[in-house]
């Protein structure tokens, strides 16, 4: 039904409530429909983000994708609220209009009726009637009536004129309550309008939050690619389905030679489920990476240990069940020799694996142990930490020398235990000692130890390991020391000389030389280089050349070592002997050690309650030895 358009009789220039409630309702419904669509999108997005295909998408791009998607649920939820808020506002306003408009119209209709009566009873024109109706007092009405009837010809007599004035005056009084009602209605209308505007503003604020949550300010705030890239995602990966991306995980592993700092960053960038998955499926790779935290590395290597023990045990059982025949064969018997060699090698490794397992699992009366590396390549390698180096105040790495290998690691682990015991512990004061059998050490002091390649081959491995310790340590930097024994000191010295190790202190015990003439050449303050040399340790007191040249030449000939002494100088085989004052390091107190059997003193630096062990404890805790 058409609404009235002429509102002048009520003193209004135009329709005070022109909105079409039907249109408002359509707007409201549109926004509600938008909100419903967003709600469905939200539900779908949540479903997508929790879909195994996406949660299983590993790697940097997978994580970046998830990170880039992360704002979506919140954004959609906010958008739904905003759309629904707008719809609600229009709907509410529509209802208000639908209620108020008839009341306005009713007032206007009543006023129009009065106006028509004034026109008829007063015999006035439309213009005069409207002027009479909207005047503030009766003066206007009298003037118009007088002009119409008294100044011109009129059928009204004086009495009729007065009666008409009275009637019109009564009609005019009828406008007042209508006008007051219109004023009241306008108040209600303004209130509804303000309420609607506030609701729209609130919705606009929500929309602003969506923009902010997208991390941008412009119209491109929803640009997914930008956010994906900013989080480290590779846009090329977006062309792959998450299922396809699952195949990327193998190539995610850092390549050989990757710096431990990059490995540490890479590991940190992974989510915990990703780390757990890699540990589960690639324990051998994870366990060998320097730069991965101790606890994760230990978890991986324990799995490697279990698997390795099983395979070694199974192989030994197989060999014992398949002994090559020897009867009736001529010697040598290469088949039997090969079988026997493999069996000996496996039994040695089996012993080492069992001792590692025992230390990790069966000693609740000792500090906890962590497995930081394990493999059975060559003679086998293992890295075992007593206490967690990532959280310890002091960290010492022990590098054993000639004879060290997986099969012989039990004695080396016990030396780490001895050093932790010597360092002591207290509230907030923990020392971690790491047995590092991470290189191929010489096995025979006469045949192997003279050669330097065991040391040079170990340099990068040792550097990476020490760098990894620095990367994964939590809290204030720990005091990191490294102790090399026998050929292990040579290994440490070569690495320090050639690469510089990120350590604060270095200890050489029973050292035949560390590859330099002076402590100052080790890329560390010589004040932090400490030497332990037992008087009766033959390795730490290698004879000078002038003494050697006095050996009977026939004895040298008998050993096959009779030539080439002419250019020998006064130094040891690997540079200046560290205990010599010219080397420029601190020499700490060590008992002379046993004289017999020969070489006994070489292995006595960790004897319980000895001066040597006490001094090692002092050094690795930042104190001065005696």
């Amino acid at each position: 039904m058409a609404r009235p358009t002429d509102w002048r009789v009520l003193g209004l220039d135009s329709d005070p409530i022109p909105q079409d409630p039907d249109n408002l309702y359509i707007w409201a419904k549109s926004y509600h429909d938008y909100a419903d669509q967003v709600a469905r999108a939200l539900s779908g997005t949540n479903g997508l983000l929790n879909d195994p295909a996406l949660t299983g998408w590993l790697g940097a791009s997978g994580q970046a994708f998830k990170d880039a998607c992360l704002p979506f649920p919140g954004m959609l939820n906010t958008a739904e609220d905003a759309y629904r808020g707008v719809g609600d506002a229009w709907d509410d306003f529509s209802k208000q209009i639908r209620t108020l408009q008839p009341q306005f119209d009713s007032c206007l209709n009543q006023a129009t009726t009065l106006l028509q009566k004034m026109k008829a009873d007063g015999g006035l024109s439309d213009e005069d009637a409207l002027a009479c109706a909207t005047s503030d007092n009766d003066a206007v009405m009298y003037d118009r009536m007088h002009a119409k009837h008294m100044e011109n010809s009129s059928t009204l007599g004086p009495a009729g004129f007065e009666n008409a004035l009275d009637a019109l005056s009564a009609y005019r009084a009828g406008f007042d309550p209508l006008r007051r009602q219109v004023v009241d209605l306008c108040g209600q209308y303004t209130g509804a309008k303000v309420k609607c505007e506030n609701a729209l503003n609130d919705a606009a604020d929500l929309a602003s939050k969506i923009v902010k949550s997208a991390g941008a300010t412009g119209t491109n705030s929803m640009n997914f690619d930008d956010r994906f890239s900013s989080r480290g995602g590779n846009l090329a990966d977006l062309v792959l389905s998450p299922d396809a991306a699952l195949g990327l995980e193998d190539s995610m592993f850092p390549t050989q030679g990757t710096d431990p700092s990059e490995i540490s960053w890479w590991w940190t960038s992974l989510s915990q489920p990703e780390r757990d998955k890699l540990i589960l499926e690639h324990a051998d790779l994870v366990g060998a990476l320097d730069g991965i935290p101790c606890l994760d590395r230990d978890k991986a290597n324990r799995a490697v240990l279990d698997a390795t023990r099983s395979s070694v045990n199974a192989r030994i059982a197989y060999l014992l069940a398949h002994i090559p025949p020897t009867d009736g064969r001529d010697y040598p018997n290469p088949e039997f020799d090969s079988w026997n060699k493999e069996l000996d090698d496996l039994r040695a490794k089996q012993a080492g694996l069992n001792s590692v397992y025992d230390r990790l699992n069966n000693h609740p009366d000792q500090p906890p142990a962590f497995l930081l590396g394990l493999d059975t390549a060559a003679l086998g390698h293992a890295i075992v930490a007593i206490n967690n180096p990532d959280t310890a105040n002091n960290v010492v790495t022990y590098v054993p020398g000639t004879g060290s290998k997986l099969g012989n690691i039990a004695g080396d682990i016990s030396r780490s235990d001895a050093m932790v015991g010597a360092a002591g512990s207290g509230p907030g004061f923990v020392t971690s000692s790491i047995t590092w059998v991470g290189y191929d050490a010489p096995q025979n002091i006469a045949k192997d130890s003279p050669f330097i390649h065991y040391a040079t081959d170990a340099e990068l491995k040792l550097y990476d390991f020490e760098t990894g310790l620095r990367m994964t340590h939590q809290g204030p930097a720990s005091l990191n020391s490294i102790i090399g024994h026998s050929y292990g000191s040579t290994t440490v010295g070569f690495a320090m000389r050639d690469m510089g190790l990120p350590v604060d202190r270095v200890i050489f015990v029973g050292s035949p030389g560390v590859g330099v003439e002076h402590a100052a050449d080790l890329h560390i303050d010589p004040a932090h280089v400490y030497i332990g040399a037992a008087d009766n340790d033959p390795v730490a007191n290698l004879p000078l050349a002038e003494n050697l040249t006095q050996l009977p030449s026939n004895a040298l000939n008998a050993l096959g070592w009779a030539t080439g002494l002419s250019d020998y100088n006064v130094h040891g085989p690997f540079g200046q002997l560290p205990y010599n004052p010219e080397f420029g390091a601190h020499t700490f107190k060590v008992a002379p050690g046993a004289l017999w059997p020969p070489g006994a003193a070489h292995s006595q630096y960790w004897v319980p309650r000895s001066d040597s062990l006490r001094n090692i404890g002092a050094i690795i805790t930042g104190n001065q030895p005696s």
Partner: protein
Amino acid sequence: MNGRTKVILIGVVVAAMVGIAAVLTGIGDTSNAHPSAHSMTLEAAKQEARQNAAAIVATLPVAPQLDPPDGTDSGGACSQGLQDQVTGQYDSSLNFRLRGVPADRNQDVFAAVRAFAGQHGFKPFGSSSGFESFKDNNGFTISVETSFDPSHTLTLGSSTPCVWPNGTQPRG
């Protein structure tokens, strides 16, 4: 010095200082081994170390709390010789932090341990500032030392010699 010379030199060094016999036979250090190692199990040796610690504590001028009560063991597999081969023997090395000893009584504790050592056949084995240790004829050692952590609490030590776990050397 060329590489060939180095090789020759080391061979000479080994021959001169170690002796061919020692290298070939693998005879090693016995200084930390129990003289009657064939008869004492590791558990029995450990029990004796505990008893030594308890006996010392009983003589101290102040009654400390032992932390932990059973000690922390830093012992393990023993090795010997120039090539550090594990022998199959083990030792136990117990450490007890002495709680409740006032710092001004530390010297009294040192004196008490010293007296105990003298009375029970332990001879001086090691000493430095804040550290004294003693060893008996069977290879058991005892010590008292000031810890390196900021608290400088005293620690009592009691260790066994290297013994066969079951008292005798396994055959084969």
